[in-house]
Protein backbone atom coordinates (compact mmCIF):
# COMPACT_ATOMS: atom_id res chain seq x y z
CA UNK A 1 0.00 0.00 0.00
CA UNK A 2 1.38 3.37 -1.02
CA UNK A 3 1.47 6.04 1.67
CA UNK A 4 -0.05 9.12 -0.02
CA UNK A 5 1.20 11.37 2.76
CA UNK A 6 4.77 10.39 3.63
CA UNK A 7 6.17 11.38 6.99
CA UNK A 8 8.34 14.24 5.70
CA UNK A 9 5.29 15.83 4.07
CA UNK A 10 3.26 15.67 7.23
CA UNK A 11 6.14 17.19 9.23
CA UNK A 12 6.57 19.95 6.63
CA UNK A 13 2.84 20.68 6.66
CA UNK A 14 2.85 20.81 10.45
CA UNK A 15 5.84 23.17 10.49
CA UNK A 16 4.19 25.40 7.88
CA UNK A 17 1.05 25.56 10.00
CA UNK A 18 3.02 26.49 13.10
CA UNK A 19 4.93 29.16 11.14
CA UNK A 20 1.68 30.65 9.84
CA UNK A 21 0.22 30.74 13.35
CA UNK A 22 3.41 32.33 14.71
CA UNK A 23 3.30 34.95 11.96
CA UNK A 24 -0.35 35.64 12.78
CA UNK A 25 0.53 36.35 16.41
CA UNK A 26 2.79 39.15 15.13
CA UNK A 27 -0.15 40.84 13.35
CA UNK A 28 -2.96 43.03 14.66
CA UNK A 29 -6.11 44.01 12.83
CA UNK A 30 -8.12 46.77 14.52
CA UNK A 31 -11.32 48.44 13.42
CA UNK A 32 -13.20 51.47 14.73
CA UNK A 33 -16.65 52.26 13.45
CA UNK A 34 -18.78 55.24 14.48
CA UNK A 35 -22.37 55.05 13.24
CA UNK A 36 -23.40 53.27 10.05
CA UNK A 37 -21.94 54.54 6.82
CA UNK A 38 -24.32 56.43 4.54
CA UNK A 39 -23.68 55.91 0.84
CA UNK A 40 -24.92 57.98 -2.13
CA UNK A 41 -27.32 55.12 -2.90
CA UNK A 42 -28.93 55.57 0.52
CA UNK A 43 -29.92 59.18 -0.20
CA UNK A 44 -31.35 58.88 -3.71
CA UNK A 45 -34.87 59.20 -2.26
CA UNK A 46 -34.25 62.83 -1.24
CA UNK A 47 -35.84 65.38 -3.59
CA UNK A 48 -35.16 69.07 -3.25
CA UNK A 49 -38.27 71.05 -2.33
CA UNK A 50 -40.35 67.91 -1.66
CA UNK A 51 -38.74 65.66 0.95
CA UNK A 52 -39.32 66.68 4.57
CA UNK A 53 -37.15 66.24 7.64
CA UNK A 54 -39.57 63.54 8.84
CA UNK A 55 -39.00 61.58 5.59
CA UNK A 56 -35.23 61.83 5.98
CA UNK A 57 -35.40 60.74 9.61
CA UNK A 58 -37.65 57.80 8.71
CA UNK A 59 -34.99 56.48 6.30
CA UNK A 60 -31.69 57.57 7.85
CA UNK A 61 -32.57 57.97 11.54
CA UNK A 62 -32.14 61.10 13.62
CA UNK A 63 -29.21 63.32 12.67
CA UNK A 64 -26.23 63.74 14.98
CA UNK A 65 -26.56 67.49 14.94
CA UNK A 66 -28.97 70.22 13.89
CA UNK A 67 -27.70 73.76 13.57
CA UNK A 68 -29.30 76.89 12.22
CA UNK A 69 -28.35 79.92 10.24
CA UNK A 70 -30.83 82.71 9.63
CA UNK A 71 -33.96 80.95 8.32
CA UNK A 72 -32.46 77.58 7.45
CA UNK A 73 -31.58 74.48 9.43
CA UNK A 74 -28.73 72.10 8.69
CA UNK A 75 -29.00 68.46 9.79
CA UNK A 76 -25.71 66.56 9.89
CA UNK A 77 -25.07 62.84 9.92
CA UNK A 78 -21.51 61.97 10.97
CA UNK A 79 -19.87 58.62 10.46
CA UNK A 80 -16.36 57.18 10.57
CA UNK A 81 -14.71 53.91 9.67
CA UNK A 82 -11.11 53.40 10.79
CA UNK A 83 -8.83 50.50 9.92
CA UNK A 84 -5.48 49.79 11.54
CA UNK A 85 -3.04 47.02 10.71
CA UNK A 86 0.25 46.34 12.48
CA UNK A 87 2.99 43.74 12.00
CA UNK A 88 5.50 43.41 14.84
CA UNK A 89 8.27 41.03 13.80
CA UNK A 90 9.78 41.43 17.27
CA UNK A 91 6.94 39.32 18.68
CA UNK A 92 8.44 36.28 16.98
CA UNK A 93 11.54 36.62 19.16
CA UNK A 94 9.41 36.28 22.29
CA UNK A 95 9.59 32.49 21.99
CA UNK A 96 13.34 32.20 22.47
CA UNK A 97 14.64 35.62 23.50
CA UNK A 98 14.50 37.15 27.00
CA UNK A 99 13.79 40.54 25.44
CA UNK A 100 11.19 41.34 22.80
CA UNK A 101 12.30 44.33 20.78
CA UNK A 102 9.63 46.17 18.84
CA UNK A 103 10.11 45.79 15.09
CA UNK A 104 6.82 47.17 13.85
CA UNK A 105 5.25 48.46 10.73
CA UNK A 106 1.76 49.86 11.11
CA UNK A 107 -0.71 52.09 9.37
CA UNK A 108 -4.13 53.41 10.30
CA UNK A 109 -6.63 54.93 7.92
CA UNK A 110 -9.89 56.62 8.86
CA UNK A 111 -12.67 57.14 6.39
CA UNK A 112 -14.65 60.05 7.71
CA UNK A 113 -17.65 61.78 6.24
CA UNK A 114 -20.56 64.05 7.02
CA UNK A 115 -23.86 64.00 5.18
CA UNK A 116 -25.53 67.39 5.35
CA UNK A 117 -29.15 68.23 4.70
CA UNK A 118 -30.19 71.86 4.42
CA UNK A 119 -33.83 72.50 5.35
CA UNK A 120 -36.01 75.58 5.12
CA UNK A 121 -38.04 76.98 8.02
CA UNK A 122 -40.82 74.45 7.28
CA UNK A 123 -38.45 71.49 7.44
CA UNK A 124 -38.37 70.85 3.68
CA UNK A 125 -35.08 69.78 2.09
CA UNK A 126 -33.40 72.50 0.02
CA UNK A 127 -29.96 70.96 -0.48
CA UNK A 128 -28.07 67.84 0.50
CA UNK A 129 -24.45 66.82 0.07
CA UNK A 130 -21.59 64.77 1.48
CA UNK A 131 -18.96 66.99 3.07
CA UNK A 132 -15.75 65.02 2.60
CA UNK A 133 -16.15 61.74 0.74
CA UNK A 134 -12.72 60.56 1.88
CA UNK A 135 -11.49 57.38 0.17
CA UNK A 136 -12.39 53.97 1.54
CA UNK A 137 -9.69 52.76 3.91
CA UNK A 138 -8.12 49.32 3.81
CA UNK A 139 -5.89 47.23 6.03
CA UNK A 140 -2.35 48.02 4.95
CA UNK A 141 0.73 47.94 7.23
CA UNK A 142 3.03 49.75 4.78
CA UNK A 143 3.66 53.18 6.34
CA UNK A 144 5.69 54.76 3.54
Amino acid at each position, binding site marked *: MIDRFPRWRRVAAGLCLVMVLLMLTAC*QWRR*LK*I*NDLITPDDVTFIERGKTS*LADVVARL*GAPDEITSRE*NIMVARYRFRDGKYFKIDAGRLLAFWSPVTPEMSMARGQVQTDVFQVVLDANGIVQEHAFAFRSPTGRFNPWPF
Partner: protein
Amino acid sequence: MRYVAMIALALSLSLPLNGCAFFRGHWGEDFDPQDVEYIKKGTTTRAEVAARFGAPDEIVHAAERDIFHYRRYDSKLGYLVIFSRFNIMGDHLYVFFNREGVVDEVVFGKRTDRLKFQIWPFGD
Protein backbone atom coordinates in the same frame (compact mmCIF):
# COMPACT_ATOMS: atom_id res chain seq x y z
CA MET B 1 -3.90 12.80 16.07
CA ARG B 2 -0.43 14.28 15.75
CA TYR B 3 -1.83 17.17 13.69
CA VAL B 4 -4.39 17.96 16.35
CA ALA B 5 -1.66 17.96 19.00
CA MET B 6 0.45 20.29 16.88
CA ILE B 7 -2.41 22.74 16.31
CA ALA B 8 -3.24 22.66 20.01
CA LEU B 9 0.40 23.40 20.83
CA ALA B 10 0.54 26.30 18.37
CA LEU B 11 -2.70 27.78 19.67
CA SER B 12 -1.60 27.40 23.27
CA LEU B 13 1.58 29.28 22.36
CA SER B 14 -0.24 32.08 20.58
CA LEU B 15 -3.28 32.70 22.78
CA PRO B 16 -1.50 33.80 25.96
CA LEU B 17 0.29 36.50 23.97
CA ASN B 18 -2.79 38.65 23.78
CA GLY B 19 -5.93 37.03 25.20
CA CYS B 20 -9.37 38.44 24.79
CA ALA B 21 -11.46 41.29 26.19
CA PHE B 22 -14.90 42.81 25.93
CA PHE B 23 -15.54 46.42 26.95
CA ARG B 24 -18.72 48.45 27.13
CA GLY B 25 -19.09 52.17 27.65
CA HIS B 26 -22.05 54.51 27.48
CA TRP B 27 -22.63 58.20 27.94
CA GLY B 28 -26.00 59.62 28.92
CA GLU B 29 -29.18 57.87 30.01
CA ASP B 30 -31.09 55.47 27.79
CA PHE B 31 -34.30 56.82 26.27
CA ASP B 32 -37.44 55.15 27.53
CA PRO B 33 -39.86 54.76 24.56
CA GLN B 34 -42.77 55.59 26.91
CA ASP B 35 -41.14 58.93 27.71
CA VAL B 36 -40.80 59.71 24.01
CA GLU B 37 -44.43 58.74 23.37
CA TYR B 38 -45.44 61.06 26.19
CA ILE B 39 -44.45 64.06 24.04
CA LYS B 40 -47.52 65.09 22.02
CA LYS B 41 -47.39 67.60 19.20
CA GLY B 42 -49.52 70.68 19.88
CA THR B 43 -50.08 69.98 23.59
CA THR B 44 -46.88 69.18 25.50
CA THR B 45 -45.02 72.27 26.70
CA ARG B 46 -41.34 73.08 27.04
CA ALA B 47 -41.60 72.87 30.86
CA GLU B 48 -43.22 69.41 30.70
CA VAL B 49 -40.49 68.11 28.40
CA ALA B 50 -37.80 69.52 30.70
CA ALA B 51 -39.51 67.96 33.73
CA ARG B 52 -39.62 64.55 32.04
CA PHE B 53 -36.18 64.47 30.41
CA GLY B 54 -34.22 67.00 32.42
CA ALA B 55 -32.22 69.83 30.95
CA PRO B 56 -31.32 69.22 27.31
CA ASP B 57 -27.73 68.58 26.26
CA GLU B 58 -28.07 71.41 23.78
CA ILE B 59 -30.62 74.06 22.81
CA VAL B 60 -30.62 75.15 19.19
CA HIS B 61 -32.48 78.21 18.01
CA ALA B 62 -33.46 77.52 14.43
CA ALA B 63 -35.89 79.33 12.15
CA GLU B 64 -37.47 81.18 15.11
CA ARG B 65 -37.98 77.91 16.96
CA ASP B 66 -36.19 76.38 19.90
CA ILE B 67 -35.02 72.79 19.60
CA PHE B 68 -34.12 70.70 22.63
CA HIS B 69 -31.47 68.12 21.77
CA TYR B 70 -30.98 65.08 24.01
CA ARG B 71 -28.32 62.50 23.15
CA ARG B 72 -26.88 59.24 24.32
CA TYR B 73 -23.91 57.20 23.10
CA ASP B 74 -23.09 53.53 23.49
CA SER B 75 -19.91 51.69 22.57
CA LYS B 76 -18.87 48.04 22.44
CA LEU B 77 -15.37 46.67 21.98
CA GLY B 78 -14.56 43.05 21.20
CA TYR B 79 -10.93 41.95 21.31
CA LEU B 80 -9.61 38.47 20.59
CA VAL B 81 -5.90 37.77 20.22
CA ILE B 82 -5.06 39.61 17.01
CA PHE B 83 -8.45 41.02 16.01
CA SER B 84 -10.50 43.79 17.56
CA ARG B 85 -13.44 45.94 16.66
CA PHE B 86 -14.81 49.00 18.41
CA ASN B 87 -18.33 50.11 17.47
CA ILE B 88 -19.89 53.39 18.61
CA MET B 89 -23.44 54.60 17.96
CA GLY B 90 -25.62 57.41 19.24
CA ASP B 91 -29.31 57.96 19.98
CA HIS B 92 -30.75 61.42 19.44
CA LEU B 93 -34.00 63.08 20.46
CA TYR B 94 -34.90 66.50 19.07
CA VAL B 95 -37.98 68.31 20.33
CA PHE B 96 -39.02 71.35 18.28
CA PHE B 97 -41.06 74.06 20.01
CA ASN B 98 -43.11 76.81 18.42
CA ARG B 99 -43.02 80.44 19.57
CA GLU B 100 -45.53 79.68 22.33
CA GLY B 101 -43.26 76.97 23.78
CA VAL B 102 -45.49 74.08 22.69
CA VAL B 103 -44.11 71.00 20.92
CA ASP B 104 -44.23 71.38 17.16
CA GLU B 105 -42.22 68.36 16.03
CA VAL B 106 -40.43 65.37 17.56
CA VAL B 107 -37.49 63.64 15.89
CA PHE B 108 -36.20 60.52 17.57
CA GLY B 109 -33.69 58.00 16.31
CA LYS B 110 -32.40 54.99 18.22
CA ARG B 111 -29.34 53.45 16.64
CA THR B 112 -27.90 51.73 19.72
CA ASP B 113 -30.42 48.88 19.35
CA ARG B 114 -28.31 47.75 16.40
CA LEU B 115 -24.98 48.07 18.21
CA LYS B 116 -23.22 44.71 18.51
CA PHE B 117 -20.15 43.22 20.11
CA GLN B 118 -17.97 42.30 17.17
CA ILE B 119 -14.45 40.93 16.95
CA TRP B 120 -14.06 40.32 13.22
CA PRO B 121 -12.70 43.60 11.76
CA PHE B 122 -13.42 42.80 8.13
CA GLY B 123 -16.57 43.38 6.08
CA ASP B 124 -19.32 45.83 7.05
